[in-house]
């Protein structure tokens, strides 16, 4: 199936037009490959990066972050600030004014009612919005007039750019989603698969977990853009196939997130059809410790929820020992090379928020063993696996299917076996793992495993929302259709207090200090999250695709409207 569509893609790619970006649609067709296939085009219902990024071609936020993390107006003329009066002096409200004459892809005007509706949609109490943390502290969203929306917060927000800023929080069309509020949200298949948007492209045909056909949005605000008349976003396969399709065969123009071993990418780049591009952002490959019991013996309403604490990992000493056994330098060398660096932090950048914490850098097998002994885990039956009260220290460690991740799994399993921890490895197809389908037992949100590994980052330069995700009650649970961002089910009132304090602090240095403190609370103090590698994002584009700017602070497809064909 994959190869069939590859050939179709290459035939289409031949229909390239001549140079220039003067006219909309003049450059023909562009092929994008995401080896994780998008399963939905509504970022409010899936936190998966592939879904958010695919949606970003269609639905747009009011403003985005550029490659340096600076704010760029999209659906507005300027980013509201205190200086231009858009943000109130006391930092409790922000007023966005839409561009005049903006139209949805169906030709109807974009109004502040849509903005307000989107906020209601995500903040609906029964909804389980995947991006709820962006709306943290929002008290009200008012329509001042046709184009002006005022968002009021419950307290001063030094960083008021949560809602409607960045690819994860776009504006939806009120008319289309009007009947999709709350628990009905996942049922609106038409709207979720084919959202009306303001972006450069609109959906022609969407096959979940497979391929999306798009065409230029005839009502896009810049009459000269996008340069491409049609776009195919092919999903699925694996990172190696995606890399080859761009770098070696040239069948695709853009490949997202080439998480491949460094030697493999270098070898592919010798193919000469395209080039890999890399940039460092806030993407951290980490181990997530499950603080709740994922045992299949529990019933569905209790399993992996806060009702049942984890029998092994609830103990800080065990979590710390697991982290101490890992040699991060070696992981980087094996998996990422130049495109990675070892880290102990959840927030590795920007500088003001990056903790100097390096306590995890040196591997300490003996220390880890001692710690486990201290926690009461001893090998009483001499089989090499520690036990306590007849229970073995055995963990299920899951991640998505990816060669580098499987190498990491093998290495980490080996280190853990050295300290007497038995590990069972599991890998799940990435489209399912990150798919967010509440019906599947294999999603990272459900976390039916003890430890899981993946990478995540935050959009923009301020980690407030990212850190706010670990609020008590924000965990995925049956009542919220297994949506939520507090994957570890972490809950600490002191941490919640710090979230609120961060939300009230205006001075950047103070914010930095708080951010560092919160980061350390999650990492070196509790080992709830065990960061492994600060990953540079590596993507690739073909030599004939121009205008690509790799952005680690927002969707990679943030400037797809500016892409063009070079000859």
């Amino acid at each position, binding site marked *: 199936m994959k190869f069939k569509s590859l050939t179709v893609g290459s035939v289409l790619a031949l229909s390239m037009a001549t140079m220039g970006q003067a006219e909309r649609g003049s450059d023909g067709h562009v092929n994008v490959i995401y080896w994780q296939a998008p399963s939905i085009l509504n970022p409010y219902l899936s936190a998966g990066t592939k879904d958010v990024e695919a949606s970003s071609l269609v639905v747009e936020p009011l403003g985005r972050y550029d490659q340096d993390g600076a704010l760029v107006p999209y659906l507005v003329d300027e980013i509201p600030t205190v200086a231009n009066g858009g943000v109130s002096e006391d930092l409790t409200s922000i007023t966005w004014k839409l561009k005049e004459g903006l139209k949805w892809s169906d030709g109807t005007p974009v109004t502040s009612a849509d903005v307000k509706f989107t906020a209601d949609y995500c903040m609906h109490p029964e909804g389980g919005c995947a991006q709820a943390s962006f709306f943290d502290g929002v008290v009200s969203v008012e329509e001042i007039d046709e184009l002006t929306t005022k968002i009021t917060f419950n307290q001063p927000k030094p960083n008021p750019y949560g809602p409607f800023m960045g690819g994860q929080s776009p504006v939806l069309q009120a008319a289309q989603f009007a009947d999709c509020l709350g628990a009905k949200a996942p049922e609106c298949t038409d709207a979720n698969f084919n959202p009306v948007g303001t972006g450069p492209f609109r959906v022609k045909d969407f096959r979940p977990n497979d391929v999306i056909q798009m065409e230029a949005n005839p009502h896009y605000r810049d009459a000269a853009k996008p340069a491409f008349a049609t776009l195919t976003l092919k999903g699925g396969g694996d990172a190696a196939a995606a890399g080859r399709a761009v770098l070696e065969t040239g069948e695709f123009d853009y490949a997202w997130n080439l998480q491949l*071993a460094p030697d493999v990418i270098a070898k592919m780049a010798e193919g000469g059809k395209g080039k890999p591009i890399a940039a460092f952002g806030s993407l951290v490959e980490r181990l997530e410790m499950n603080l709740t019991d994922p045992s299949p013996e529990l019933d569905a309403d209790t399993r992996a929820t806060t009702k049942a604490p984890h029998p092994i990992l609830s103990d800080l000493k065990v979590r710390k020992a697991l982290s101490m056994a890992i040699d991060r330098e*070696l992981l980087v060398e094996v998996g990422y090379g130049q495109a990675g660096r070892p880290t102990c932090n959840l927030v590795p950048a920007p500088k003001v928020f990056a903790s100097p914490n390096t306590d995890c850098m040196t591997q300490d097998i003996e220390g880890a063993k001692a710690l486990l002994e201290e926690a009461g885990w001893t090998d009483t039956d001499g089989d090499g696996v520690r036990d306590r009260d007849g229970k073995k220290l055995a963990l299920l460690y899951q991640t998505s299917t990816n060669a580098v991740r*499987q190498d990491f799994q*093998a*290495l980490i399993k*080996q280190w853990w076996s050295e300290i007497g921890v038995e590990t*069972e490895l599991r*890998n799940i197809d990435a489209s399912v793992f990150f798919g967010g389908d509440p019906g599947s*037992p294999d999603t990272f949100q459900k976390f039916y495993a003890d430890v899981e590994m993946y990478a995540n980052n935050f959009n923009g330069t301020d980690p407030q929302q990212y850190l706010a995700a670990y609020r008590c009650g924000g965990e995925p649970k049956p009542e919220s259709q297994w949506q939520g961002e507090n994957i570890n089910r972490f809950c600490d009132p002191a941490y919640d207090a710090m979230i609120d304090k961060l939300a009230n602090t205006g001075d950047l240095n103070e914010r930095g200090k708080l951010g560092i403190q919160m980061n350390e609370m999650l990492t070196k103090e509790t080992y709830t999250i065990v960061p492994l590698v600060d990953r540079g994002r590596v993507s690739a584009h073909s030599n004939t695709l121009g205008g690509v700017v790799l952005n680690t602070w927002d969707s990679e497809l943030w400037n797809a409207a500016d892409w063009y064909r070079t000859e």
Partner: protein
Amino acid sequence: MTDQSATPKSFEPVPTAPPRSQWADVWRQFRRHKGALFGGGFLLFITLAVLIGPYLWTVDPQKLNIRFKDIRPIYTALWDGDAKVNWAHPLGSDNLGRDILANLLSGGRASMAVGWAAMVISVVIGTVIGVVAGFFKRLDGLFMRFTDLVLSLPILPLLLVAVTLFRQPLRKNFGPETGMFILIVAIIGITSWMQTARIVRGEVLALKEREFVLAARSIGTKPFKIITRHLLPNVLSPIMVSATLGLATAIITESALSFLGVGFPSDFPTWGKLLSDAVPRMEEFPERVVLPGLMISLTVLSVNYIGDGLRDALDPRIRGR
């Protein structure tokens, strides 16, 4: 009468050679088939290798040793003097320093075990269904329509669904590796018996109208006895042939599953897994793809040849030609 009995005997030709048993005939015919002989030899070799090999080559296949990663097989030194080779890893090591020889041996164990077990299941089911459908007219329609039904099930999607549904309970009861083994074997077994059933039914339909069955029936032999005594030995040859083909299919299906990443845990080597892990570095380290691929191909090929030879050898009409 007693003295007369000796006289006619002297007119009969005296057998000079001891009587040949049927199996000796089969063996003689089988030996004439060169391919089958090679196939049999290779299968015996590979089975022994994966059974005994891990005791002789005691390197742990899952043991990582980063310092000895990316070692080439020893034979590359023949044409490339600078190649990184090491006698500690005669067939080289992978990118995490796992020994390839050890992986091939223990991977073969898993693949062969899946193949044999699934084959036995499918042959047993297929034979039972085929014989019953062919022998008892009343059950024929029912059983054969059921066979058609199962025949129309696509095996890979079915496996993917089954993996999602049954992985957890099996894992809980039997552990991750045994649980997965049971699941894979069961699914392959219960989705590949249909060809056997159809062939066996056809043979039984023809056989049961033959005189010797009629004779057996007329002296009051019970149906079960007729089946075991007269029918089964006569349908043995198609069963054997489809069994060998089944073994090959099962190994390939398991490889496909491992290749898709839904089979055994990622650190449990099977031939299919080794193959799929090696694909990204195929150009620099072709041996990592070629060796397990060769193992799969040769095993399947040899099994097919054995099947071919057995068919010739077991059929008395072909025998001797």
